[in-house]
């Protein structure tokens, strides 16, 4: 009798322990499967990020645009290689059209959202790529649009009778925008700066599909744009330092003052402006327009990118010609406008570094500008001004 009961008890214990162990191991196995799926999805997503990184930092990934395998014109317009770098619109174009990426679903979180990675750096493009149930959130830093102002002693204009004075960036890390701010930049800013009052009034003037220089903002709006990005409006002193040829790059403590007239050389008797002044019949060629995008260039070679003209020794563009540029001038406040632009002829006296006119920053009529002796004599609507920003990193 006791033996029979014992038999049943042993059977029940064995069956129970078997089921219990089985359930435990089943749970373990399910967890292992989940861990494995997550791991595989993570690795797969990372492999996509490596492609996206190449597109972001190099632009035309695997020459897809050059070989016409992808057409991104409806996203970016026609752009040169340099402006394809760090371009969110190009990234979206590749995500939608590139064979290796089009299977990937994605969502954009914002161009200027700041606090995803505990940084108040509003120069990021944020979006998410998705695979299975897993998401990889990505923040792409817009590192292509700024360049470093080398640490050295620079010559600057002076506010006294002295012809020049000195300043140095030896203990500072200053980054300057390479290009003037674009329509796309202003469009994304207006959509992001929630405290800014004039968004509705300004937004129709700027397209998210245009990477041309943004024109038409007032000085206080330009200031707001820069400060929203944690930057400052570029100063005349810093523009001069970043554009005037220093002569010897390696000597960062020059003994003698250098304020070159041109970005391409410290010598004054070289370059297209000098040549044109010397010989008024000289024909303006494309190469000259790449150095100074002047009025003649605007009429003759419209296909040229004025945004990528006139590079300087530090890697900033548009330092002569192209568009007029508003600057903060902390030394001579009545010289706040880089007048050299497509409204002046190649031989114009304005086509020299450090020569500046005045704009009151409030209105785009002729009375707001003071070109002194060298008035452009253009229609009022041609008086348009661009801008760029700088920031310091500690």
């Amino acid at each position, binding site marked *: 009798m006791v033996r029979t009961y014992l038999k049943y008890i042993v059977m029940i214990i064995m069956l129970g322990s078997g089921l219990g162990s089985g359930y435990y191991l089943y749970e373990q196995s399910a967890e292992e499967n989940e861990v494995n799926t997550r791991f595989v999805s993570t690795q797969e997503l990372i492999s996509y990020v490596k492609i996206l990184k190449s597109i972001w930092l190099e632009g035309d990934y695997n020459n897809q645009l050059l070989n016409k395998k992808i057409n991104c014109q409806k996203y970016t317009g026609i752009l040169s290689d340099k402006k394809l770098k760090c371009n969110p619109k190009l990234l979206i174009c590749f995500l939608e059209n590139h064979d290796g990426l089009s299977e990937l679903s994605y969502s954009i979180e914002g161009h200027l959202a700041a606090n995803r990675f505990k940084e108040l750096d509003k120069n990021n493009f944020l979006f998410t790529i998705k695979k299975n149930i897993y998401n990889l959130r990505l923040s792409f830093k817009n590192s292509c649009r700024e360049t470093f102002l080398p640490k050295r002693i620079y010559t600057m204009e002076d506010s006294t009778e002295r012809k020049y004075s000195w300043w140095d960036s030896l*203990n500072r890390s200053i980054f300057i925008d390479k290009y003037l701010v674009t329509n796309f930049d202003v469009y994304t800013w207006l959509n992001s700066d929630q405290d800014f009052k004039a968004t509705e009034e300004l937004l129709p003037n700027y397209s998210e599909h245009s990477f041309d220089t943004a024109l038409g903002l007032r000085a206080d709006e330009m200031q707001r744009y820069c400060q929203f990005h944690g930057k400052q409006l570029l100063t005349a002193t810093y523009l001069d330092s970043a554009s005037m040829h220093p002569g010897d790059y390696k000597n960062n403590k020059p003994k003698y003052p250098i304020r070159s007239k041109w970005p391409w050389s410290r010598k004054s008797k070289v370059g297209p402006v000098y040549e044109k002044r010397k010989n008024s019949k000289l024909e303006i060629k494309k190469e000259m327009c790449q150095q100074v995008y002047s009025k003649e260039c605007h009429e003759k070679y419209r296909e040229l990118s004025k945004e990528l003209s006139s590079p300087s020794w530090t890697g900033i563009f548009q330092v002569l010609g192209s568009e007029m540029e508003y600057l903060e001038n*902390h030394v001579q406040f009545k010289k706040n406008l880089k007048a050299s632009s497509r409204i002046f002829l190649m031989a114009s006296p304005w086509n020299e570094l450090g020569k500046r006119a005045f704009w009151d920053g409030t209105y785009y009529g002729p009375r707001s500008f003071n070109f002194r002796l060298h008035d452009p004599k253009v229609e009022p609507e041609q008086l348009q001004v661009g801008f760029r920003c700088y920031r310091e990193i500690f």
Partner: protein
Amino acid sequence: MKYVFPVIILINFILFSSCIRGISKIDYFYQKTFPLIISTYNVDKSELYLNTHSPLSRPPSTFINLVGLHSLDENFKKKTYCLFYKVPQKSNKSLGRLQLISTKKSCQNEINSKPIAFINGIQELMIHLNDEDTIVERKMFFKNTLYIEFKKDEESRTLVFPLYNYSSKKKETFKRFSTSFNDNILKGIKISMTTRDLELIPDPIKTIGEYSDTYLNHNLKICHNFDKRCKEISKYSCNKCKFGWFNVVGNNNCKNTTLKYCGRNRCGEKGMPACVRGHEAALKMGLENNNGCYEYSPAGYCNVGLRTSCDGNVLICL
């Protein structure tokens, strides 16, 4: 009735065999911890244990904290993981144990917490994390990547964790044409894993300063400050300025460190701080001593018609 026992044994066998682990403990550890660790943006390192190139052997039978890994969790909140290693005794090789623990505070107090994953029975452990790509004994160690090397059952294994958000260089050295991205693996691109259904609720950053703040209205916020002896009296927080920041010339003897304010740089205007000229340039212009805050000081420059003057702690333009 006589078939009942064999049937039960068979059921148990089927249950066990169908649920047997598909992957090894090492692979499970790696797969579980990989998605958590790769979002690491900062590392608490101990030079005693990192890049030793010889197995860790002291102190035996004791848990040591190899590294603290500051990562981002699924909701972009800071999350710290601690990698612990129990150093094996020479006489008993099975004692070595590697484990990853999550903490809300510091790694020091977390040794007894439940690990996220662990591996037992390991020995000859070494970890590597380098600032630059490094070759040691014909092995390549990529920068900003955590390598965990060990032996288990006499087999050598290396677990590789690229730390995608981590930049080892605390202070970048910029040169001509340098860009401003951090020196992380993906060159300025940062990542964080999450599951699709999780709503993103980031912590708002406490920003400093308002657009309308000005020096004249005495409402500009200081974001970095030093005392007369150049000792830092308020830590650098200018990365939290809502509308940018700028340097001014302070009333101290600091050559390389300047007082910083959040907001618009209106230097050079009347009543505003003077623009910083820089120490070397100021010396060229006749700076009398390291403290540049005095009347007519060349440590700063002003707009036309104005001169510099010391306004208590700041060189201003009058």
